[in-house]
């Protein structure tokens, strides 16, 4: 049985956990002092040695990303933290920033020092006002404490940190779209190459990291690479936040070493809601192909999930029990992708428009079994043909749901409509059942 390892979340239960005083009470802003006493490259080396991989979904080694920044190039470098948490099911950075924004700031100071950036940005989604407040306040407090600005920590190093608030666009979680958005353009993805490490923000070398990745850095510097890499699996090191939601007894955040299984998490959470059983789930948000009960023991690390045909993504474990109509669930996700498609490329823009229409018909029992093949063929024409991964992600729920639940799609057709009662899937229904 894997034990939980609260590091990032270790002090969230203290009422003032988001304040600078609370953070410092538990050793906050000590790691950065340690880092500032080292050579920047040594900091990068520790992060490389730790095996930390990007927590935003792609799992790219963080230290390696930092190492790509050209040094001695006389150009400005930038650090941009991606706090545009918008992938359906994903809800880890938001509570982290609400409860402890300073760990991100400390991580950003360390990362900026390592990559020789004098300017850093947090790009946060705009629909979470109170998180914006907390982060804004934390930045102001860090400035007051001399941790940001000119000559931070009484050293020669300068760092400006700006909170940039988005305005409702899922695509801005894609790092190049985020950079365009941050530059004041429509948030549409850029051609790569050049990659951000060479020409990112303002065409300057830029590192874009997820909140959780950067927030993990102070603990790595404080405790050492070996401490971090002692957690997790062979290629997926360290602890991470798993977000459990949906039809479970107790949803919430679980900070555990990479490689824990859903069965273990569910056990800790009191299982699927009483009287029901798991039907399907996402390992890392809606863009990762669905899993079923057959995958309860899949190790939730990058390799384990990939080997089972999905992606670890953001470790957003959305659990759906047998009351849920998979067609309805998939339609709703597809509507999401259609709504969030940036419009730049044809397959995603037009493809999601079409997919929604077919799925709506299917949910209403209109169409034929041939429409399922058409759906799959359209997905084939979107996957890997779109400009960025949004289009790819849009196909994941469709192809995986048809893979596992083809019969349920057919049942809609034979039934002349959805055979499910949507009320049965609601929490209110559970409350009702319990009350009885």
């Amino acid at each position, binding site marked *: 049985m894997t034990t*939980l*390892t*609260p590091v990032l979340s270790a002090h969230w*239960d203290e009422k003032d*956990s988001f*304040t600078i005083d609370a953070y410092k009470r538990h050793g906050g802003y000590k790691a950065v002092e340690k880092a500032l006493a080292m050579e920047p490259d040594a900091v990068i080396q520790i992060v490389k040695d730790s095996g930390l991989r990007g927590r935003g979904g792609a799992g790219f080694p963080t230290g390696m990303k930092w190492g790509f920044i050209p040094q001695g190039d006389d150009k400005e470098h930038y650090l941009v933290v991606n706090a545009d948490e*918008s992938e*359906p*099911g*994903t*809800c880890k950075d*938001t*509570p982290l920033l*609400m*409860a402890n924004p300073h760990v991100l700031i400390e991580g950003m100071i360390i990362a900026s020092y390592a990559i020789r950036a004098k300017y850093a940005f947090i790009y946060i989604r*705009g*629909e*979470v*006002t*109170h998180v914006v*407040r907390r982060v*804004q*306040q934390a930045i*102001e407090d860090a400035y007051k404490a001399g941790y940001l600005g000119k000559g931070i920590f009484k050293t020669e190093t300068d760092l400006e940190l*700006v*909170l*940039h*608030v988005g*305005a*409702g*666009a*899922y695509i801005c979680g894609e790092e190049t779209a985020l950079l365009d958005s*941050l*530059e*004041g*353009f*429509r*948030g549409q993805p850029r051609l790569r190459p050049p990659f951000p490490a060479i020409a990112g923000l*303002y065409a300057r070398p830029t590192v874009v990291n997820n909140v959780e990745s950067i927030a993990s850095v102070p603990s790595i510097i404080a405790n050492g690479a070996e401490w971090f890499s002692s957690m997790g699996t062979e290629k997926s090191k360290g602890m991470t936040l798993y*977000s459990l939601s*949906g039809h479970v007894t107790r*949803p*919430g*955040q*679980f*900070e555990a070493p990479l490689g824990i299984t859903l069965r273990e998490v569910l056990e*800790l*959470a009191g299982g699927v809601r009483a009287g029901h059983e798991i039907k399907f789930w996402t390992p890392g948000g*809606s863009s990762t192909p669905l899993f079923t009960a057959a995958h309860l023991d899949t190790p939730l690390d990058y390799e384990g999930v990939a080997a089972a045909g999905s992606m670890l993504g953001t470790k*957003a474990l*959305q659990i759906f029990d047998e009351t*849920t109509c998979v067609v*309805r669930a998939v339609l709703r*996700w597809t509507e999401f992708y259609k709504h969030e498609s940036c419009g730049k490329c044809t397959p995603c823009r037009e493809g999601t428009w079409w997919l929604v229409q077919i799925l709506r018909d299917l949910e209403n029992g209109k169409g034929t079994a041939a429409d399922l093949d058409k759906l799959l063929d359209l997905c084939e024409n979107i996957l890997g043909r779109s400009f960025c991964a949004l289009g790819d992600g849009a196909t994941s729920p469709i192809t995986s749901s048809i893979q596992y639940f083809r019969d349920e799609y057919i049942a809609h057709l034979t039934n002349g409509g959805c055979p499910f009662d*949507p*009320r049965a*899937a*609601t*929490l*209110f229904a559970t409350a009702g059942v319990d009350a009885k």
Partner: protein
Amino acid sequence: MAYNEEDLVIMDSIIARYPRSRSAIMPLLHFVQSKDGFVTSDGIETLAIKLGLATAEVSAVATFYTQYKRKPVGEYHVGVCTNTLCAVMGGDEIFAALKEHLDLENDGVTADGKVSLEHLECNAACDYAPVVMANWEFYDNQTVESAKALVDGARQGNPPAPTRGPNALPTWKENSAVLAGLNDGHAFEGVQAGEPSLLGLEISKKAGKS
């Protein structure tokens, strides 16, 4: 010009945050909403001048992002998450109930201008599903009844406090200023974390003790 001297000074201070002025367009649009309630042509034209852009370039950005509104919204803008997880767990029913209760369609505003309604995509609070947002503050674990109580309170100018947020729900304009990066001093209010956020920690602590 719809903006006074003080507004223009704030706009300049927002621009000054960035190495390049164009980057300020998004916070400036939030700021415009904090003054006008939505993205007005005054706002677009003022930003074009401030940033040295064509008006078309400003409107191109403004129309890309869903939080920028092209027409007035309510003093309390209520969003119901109807992405899959919240929808399945009750979001659809909540949204349907609010539409009926307020006699509004999606994107509608009540005649008194107090409440507007839209359905939202995932708002990063899935462990609190079903989720409702008001002026982008969290109302967690909602039911049809609690959501109705929220909009009823809002219409009377007395909305209940957010679950994880400030002690009282600010107005749309007030919160737009926060999104523009202007500190309203409410950061220290409200809980540091809700129950689901603490679940793993709590279990871990219990396990440690046992």
